[in-house]
């Protein structure tokens, strides 16, 4: 059993009238990879913001190692839209995320992590000069360079094409083998969840809550074996798909509500 790292205790949060999360409780073990799977509108991103310490819950408690989280202290966020600073070079973008280091140290650290994601040649390039996959690797390098204990990933590969997306998933697993971290990964892709997760939390929308927890027992490293060919993979996949489909069809706020 892993030691508990992050804990949410009956957390509720509303934005005005709209309830984003209702009575969400969950616990992340140290260096565990937990994927939150759910349709849009189920408060997945809100969950990450809470753990990052960017927002506070209306009710309940969020703790990291027993204390309320403070932004940038133990967590780093990776965003779907990259959020790179367009007027800073790749190196400066990574160095910006290291406010506690001196300029020289930040620069050195940035170069090390650019190397790690294979972007050394582009250290002086602006984000506009990079391809989508390269921009996401840069965003990943920025998050990893802070050497966070907890990596919070908000659909980080959703805007990449299918091929770049698979490469990035493998890349992420490779990086985590080198330097383990607790990962809370949000996606709406069933395959991505099954490939990456130790555990999947299924969330339902309006208000967002955790409705099911699925352990993913495939052996690691998964990049060597073809996990997708395992019989259990197909079984879990169809189960998760069905649950997701039901949620979307039964959600009055969804575009697909009531279709069969």
């Amino acid at each position, binding site marked *: 059993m892993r030691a508990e790292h992050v804990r949410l205790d009956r957390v509720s949060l509303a934005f005005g009238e709209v309830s984003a999360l209702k009575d969400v409780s969950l616990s992340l073990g140290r260096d565990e990879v937990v994927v939150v799977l759910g349709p849009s509108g189920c408060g997945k991103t809100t969950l990450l913001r809470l753990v*990052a310490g960017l927002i506070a819950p209306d009710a309940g408690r969020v703790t990291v190692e027993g204390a309320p989280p403070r*932004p940038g202290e133990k967590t780093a966020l990776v965003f779907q839209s990259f959020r790179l*600073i367009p007027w800073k070079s790749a190196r400066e973008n990574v160095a*910006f995320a290291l*406010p506690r280091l001196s300029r020289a140290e930040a620069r050195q650290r940035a170069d090390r992590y650019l190397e790690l994601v294979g972007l050394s040649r582009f250290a002086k*390039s602006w984000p506009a000069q990079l*391809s989508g996959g390269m921009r996401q690797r840069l965003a990943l390098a920025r998050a990893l360079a802070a050497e966070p204990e907890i990596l919070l990933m908000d659909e980080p590969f959703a805007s990449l094409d299918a091929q770049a997306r698979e490469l990035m998933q493998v890349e992420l697993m490779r990086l985590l083998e080198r330097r383990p971290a607790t990962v809370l990964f949000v996606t709406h892709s069933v395959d991505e969840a099954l490939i990456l997760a130790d555990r999947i939390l299924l969330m339902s929308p309006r208000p967002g809550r955790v409705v099911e927890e699925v352990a993913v027992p495939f052996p690691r490293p998964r990049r060597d074996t073809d996990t997708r060919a395992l019989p259990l993979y197909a079984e879990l996949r169809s189960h998760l798909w069905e649950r997701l489909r039901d949620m979307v069809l039964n959600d009055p706020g969804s575009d697909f509500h009531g279709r069969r």
Partner: protein
Amino acid sequence: MAGWTGTGGRSLRPAGAGTVLVLRLLFLGLLLLLWGLASATVPRGLIPSPATTAQAAARLWAEGRLQTAIGQSLLTYGTGLGAAVLVGIPLGALMGMVRLFGRTLDIFVFALAATPRVAFIPLIIVLLGLGTEAKAMIVFLGAVMPIVLNTYAGVLARDGELIEMARSTGASAARIQLHIVLPGALPFLVVGLRLGATIGLINTVVAELYTAVTGLGGLLALYGNTFRMADYFVIVLALAAIGVIVTESLRLLEGRLSRWRLPDRP
């Protein structure tokens, strides 16, 4: 798109710039031709020919009048515009950063910006007299408004997503302003500087006409009123040249500051 380094996108620029230069020179030639034709057809020498104007410029230069007038005007212009930059940028930035401060002040700034600044000239003369201070103040009042308002707008147009990203790294408020908000406001700021520089030059001439008559504005009035049309044209061209040099310099500055955008342009 994959693996594209962006250097290829820039190879078009020098060729394009060369073409534009040639076309501009051709257009200048056309203007001179039209000017020559006009001077030949309009009676009684109301429009001096390009050659006569060039001779007048040489004469005014030899007499030292042109340099003196340009010097006087540039002093007024530089002082007023410099003060507008020194006041306008920090004021606009502060209004954008401290929301309560900005929301309290902005309506007054808008009101002042909407009032024709010529209306203040009698007041300025009463307070500051007819000398350089009064002139610089007239330039300042014209130039400062677009600089304040554009800096303000630039800071308000900050990117909320980038700010959230910065917050998530543990960046302090000061670090976020310095690295995200202020650099993001630069394109707006440069537009404000260009507008301010243009209005400032107009106000330089206005100031020289309304207060003690000096500088290029003074000569403009003198030569215009005495029908010394060749001399008058020299002054007009000198003012145009100053305007072009200042705004083109600011455009170069803008290009340098936004180099990071270039690769995205087709």
